[in-house]
């Protein structure tokens, strides 16, 4: 098959408009006799053939190959027909787009995130020498190791070698760089491990979004950015909370149980669990077109009620803050989140004031909180009832009650209140961090992402090798534990 000179080998999908005829013999040679259809995509979707790639080339799967195994549709999406059509005539075909790839991409990304060779090598469990060789393209490195590095840097590992830059989000890189190190102008002062934790989470967000593909999208459901931060911003937060509860079908007094599930299933927003510096509560990240929430499991978030509050806070950012406010990455500290949303002297940023008010009102509307609280003789019992009813933290319950009653929080006698969530609440917000069938899986990949991988394997979209590599285990372990992962999420 001859490719028109003005079309790149990757743009085969755009050639549909050219009414291009594909050579049947080539399609059969590449995708196998059992495949059917007139186009590479139709063939790939019906093909059982497995491909294998390295740093430099792609070939048909074979017994001696140790590289990454890809389904036909994965291979087609990654390399394009222009490249894999060569396999009709060759045993292997090159995939490197430019001399020095993928090393140049890895090096540029590492530098753009402000990470040293040592920082990245340690996280990727490589020696600094090997990483340096990889970056300088002076030696061959197994593709599985290179992919591991790419995932940590929020690069698309399927694009390594083929596209310079590997589809990394430049804006996200810049934002992370701005926040790193003691010279940062930003008060958060990220450490290298914090940057790596957030960039890996950004990778999971993007992959989970791609796997969900045509599933629900909060934008399609009508959740659009709201530009109203007018004084007092908490009023806008309360309005948005009421609006969101109504859209989701919650009556005024209904508690919201299983918040993480709701956010992921009903709104299609990836919620990624992470173990970060205990100072940080959560973050909202945009990686390309994908947006998601990162929740720190450490610090105050160890209490599931606080964690719910953090999640609701980040949800407000994600659903309603315009893109320029998020600036690709917005990280919240507990100091900001665990604050009375209506005390404007404590938090000065209107974006945070609005998100704090949203979180409190979304989880426990003041009108309903007031009724529950007033049903008890003592403040302590009333507060405990509010916390248990709505699954909110002690401080959040106190502020909601005080603001509902128009009294100062200091006037509420909260002595003796048990601030530990019940087992039922803890189970309802299960984050699969404590128990996950694949021990080697990093915390941030143990959520719904794992379930989406299982579904994609069962639907023939990706190989079990792709899923296993994404979870940090081998293919056999993934296959042995696939059903267990499924049962956690179904």
């Amino acid at each position, binding site marked *: 098959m001859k490719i028109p000179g003005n079309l790149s080998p990757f743009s085969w999908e755009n050639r549909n408009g050219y009414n291009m005829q594909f050579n049947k013999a080539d399609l059969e040679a590449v995708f196998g006799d059992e495949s059917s259809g007139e186009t590479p995509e139709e063939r790939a979707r019906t093909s059982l053939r497995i491909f294998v*790639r390295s740093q*430099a080339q792609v070939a048909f799967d074979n017994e001696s*190959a140790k590289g990454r195994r890809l389904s036909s549709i994965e291979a087609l999406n990654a390399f394009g027909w222009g490249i894999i059509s060569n396999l009709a005539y060759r045993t*292997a*075909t090159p995939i490197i787009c430019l001399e020095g790839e993928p090393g140049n991409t890895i090096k540029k990304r590492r530098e753009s995130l402000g990470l040293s060779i040592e920082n990245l090598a340690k996280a990727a469990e490589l020696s600094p020498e090997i990483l340096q060789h990889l970056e300088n393209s002076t030696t061959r490195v197994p593709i599985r190791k290179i992919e591991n590095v790419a995932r940590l840097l929020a690069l698309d590992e399927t694009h390594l070698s083929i596209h310079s830059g590997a589809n990394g989000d430049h804006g996200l890189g810049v934002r992370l760089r701005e926040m790193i190190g003691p010279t940062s102008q930003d008060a958060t002062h990220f450490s290298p491990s914090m940057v790596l934790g957030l960039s890996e989470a950004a990778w999971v967000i993007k992959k989970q979004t791609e796997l969900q593909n045509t599933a629900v999208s909060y934008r399609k459901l009508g959740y659009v950015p709201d530009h109203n931060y007018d004084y007092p911003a908490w009023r806008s937060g309360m309005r948005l909370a009421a609006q969101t509860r109504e859209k989701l079908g919650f009556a005024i007094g209904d508690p919201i149980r299983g918040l993480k599930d709701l956010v992921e299933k009903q709104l299609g927003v990836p919620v990624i669990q992470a173990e970060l510096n205990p100072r940080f509560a959560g973050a909202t990240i945009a990686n390309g077109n994908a947006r998601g929430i990162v929740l720190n499991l450490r610090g105050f978030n160890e209490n599931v009620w606080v964690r719910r509050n953090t999640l609701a806070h980040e949800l407000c950012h994600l659903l309603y803050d315009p893109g320029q406010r998020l600036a690709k990455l917005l990280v919240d500290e507990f100091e900001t989140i665990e604050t009375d949303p209506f005390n404007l002297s404590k938090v000065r940023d209107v974006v945070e004031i609005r998100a704090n008010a949203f979180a409190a009102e979304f989880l426990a509307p003041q009108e309903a909180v007031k009724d529950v609280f007033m049903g008890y003789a003592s403040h302590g019992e009333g507060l405990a009832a509010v916390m248990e009813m709505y699954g909110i933290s002690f401080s959040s319950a106190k502020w909601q009650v005080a603001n509902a009653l128009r009294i100062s929080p200091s006037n509420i006698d909260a002595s003796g209140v048990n601030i530990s969530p019940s087992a039922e609440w803890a189970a309802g917000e299960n984050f699969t961090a404590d128990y996950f069938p694949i021990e080697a899986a990093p915390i941030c990949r143990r959520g719904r992402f794992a379930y989406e991988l299982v579904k994609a394997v069962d639907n023939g979209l990706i190989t079990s090798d792709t899923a296993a590599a994404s979870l940090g285990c081998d293919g056999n372990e993934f296959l042995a534990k696939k059903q267990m992962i499924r049962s956690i999420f179904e």
Partner: protein
Amino acid sequence: MISSVSGMAHLIVMTFDEFREKYPARSPKQCLIKNDDELQLMPKEKGVHSFGEHASDMLQSHIPRDFNDRGNIHLWVIAQNDVPFALEQVEWGKGLESGVIKHTNLTGGSDAHCGGELWFIDQESVILGGSSGRYGPQNEQELKDAVNSFAACNYKVAHMGFDEDTGQPFTVLVGEPQWL
């Protein structure tokens, strides 16, 4: 087998005959032969050379490092009686159904011991690859032995190496050439 010392490198050189003895001739993979043109024997005068014979008209090339520009690729075969090679894009091949020559055009479809690609970097230096669907080396050792046989013809030789990830010889060079 000849053992020679060149500078610091210790090189075990294998002649083509020794290679043939170690790796018997085999038929080209029939499943890869797409049309009868691929079995036509390319006439010598149309641009087939024998490795080791003096030839001044060889097209030199840069080292192939990416898929966009793989340079001037020559195909080689360790055939039963000689080691023919020719430019893949040779004029004669344009008249064939595939538009380029295949390794079988160097043998007429006969059995051969090994095959691959090569690039003349200068008059004395060649880089070899083992990419040939029809006669390609079946493992890294076979590729290394083939390369050693080329080195016995007084050329400075490097090879692309064998890609463990794909289980196939490399089709582009990653890193610097490792000259034998």
